[in-house]
């Protein structure tokens, strides 16, 4: 997701083509061609410009509506409801790929969460995240916390730092010292202050209550697409 103001001018984008299964858009005002995944103007009058990334989330509707009670939902367009594929994920996964990276760590259609910290890109295989969430990692010296939500489908990435100090997090109820008899509600707990944190990255109780972690933009993508635009990416392994 991108802001669409460039050099003080508001642009309107439309779908204009495809580049190795990542779509191209053009703006009505200048006709410039933009690559969807990078937000870069690759041809036309604004070539070289980059759109500003907007922090966005991929969440389940259920998770989102607990967080934003006054939010608005894009209404389906009646004419096209037949075209909407509720089961889009396995359907898209069946489509062939036109670029592949043999010899790399992952398969073309493996789903990853990709992020970039000061130019250093890293991909986190979705399967690994699903098994290990919350994942604590360092990229380019920045401590990161990658976490799947209570629904197991929503995800967010945070800077794992409380008051400028690196922090460790674990999922409440997963501490082996705790008894599993009582099922506690979903919450993260930090190892330093033992405060409880919600999926929005804010402490809801304990000494850190009221504090929120900084967010890091991350993209859920197929490996082939992520690798194509981030040739130097590393892959998280544990």
């Amino acid at each position, binding site marked *: *997701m*991108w*802001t*669409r*103001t460039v050099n003080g001018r*508001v*642009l*309107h*984008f*439309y*779908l*204009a*083509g*495809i*580049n*190795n*299964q990542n*779509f*191209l*858009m053009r703006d009505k005002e200048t006709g410039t*061609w933009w690559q*969807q995944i990078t937000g870069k103007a690759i*041809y*036309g009058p604004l070539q070289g410009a980059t759109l500003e990334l*907007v*922090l*966005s*989330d*991929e*969440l*389940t*509707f*259920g998770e*989102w509506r607990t*967080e*934003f*009670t*006054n*939010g*608005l*939902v*894009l*209404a*389906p*367009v009646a*004419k*096209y409801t037949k*075209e*909407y*594929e*509720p089961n*889009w*994920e396995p359907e*898209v996964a069946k*489509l*062939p790929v*036109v*670029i592949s990276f043999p010899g790399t760590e992952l398969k073309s259609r493996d789903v990853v969460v990709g992020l970039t910290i000061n130019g250093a890109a890293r991909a986190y295989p979705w399967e690994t995240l699903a098994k290990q969430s919350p994942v604590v990692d360092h990229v380019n010296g920045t401590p990161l916390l990658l976490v799947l939500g209570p*629904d197991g*489908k929503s995800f967010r990435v945070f800077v794992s730092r409380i008051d400028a100090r690196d922090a460790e997090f674990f999922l409440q109820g997963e501490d082996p010292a705790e008894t599993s008899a009582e099922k506690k509600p979903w919450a993260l707990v930090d190892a330093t202050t033992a405060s409880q944190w919600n999926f929005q990255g804010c402490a809801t109780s304990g000494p850190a209550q009221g504090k929120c972690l900084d967010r890091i933009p991350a993209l859920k993508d197929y490996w082939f697409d992520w690798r194509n635009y981030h040739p130097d990416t590393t892959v998280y392994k544990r």
Partner: protein
Amino acid sequence: MNTSSLSEHEFHGQLADQSNRRTSRWIWIPFFLCALATIGLFFVPAFIIRPFRYQAPRALFVAMALRQYAPLVTLIAGIACFVLAFALWKTVGPWRRALLVLILLPVTFSAVMARQNYFEWMFHPIAGPQFLAQSESKLDPKEMIMAVRFASDARAYPISQMAYHHVLNDVVGGVPIVATY
């Protein structure tokens, strides 16, 4: 005398025919060039930017450049094609007239298609997005959405819809954004 004057007339006629043919040869060449340019300006980029095909960086660059100038150039070249075809029409027989028509058809098609965004025929854009309060939405709680928030303005774009429309221009909390999927 009569015979001689007739043959003289014929002779002049033959000369005129020859010169006509020579002139028409010089019209056929620009006609073919205009036709080739118009047809190429649509078909070459359409061929390069095919879904499920590899796009080499240089080929993509050529496709974007051609698409960029195609609306103007196909208009000029297309009109030139018709003017030249009109000039040729009087000088040629029925077979060549058929050939002219046969060439003008894809020329017209290409000039029209160079102005069309056929990707939006496949994936229709949302002209004026409508929104529902979350309590009115019939989405399943398990459905994935793309979410964005500016100040107190929060939006959810269901991925099942975005995977079809691909691009949505919106203004959230006063900030113009484009949601892409």
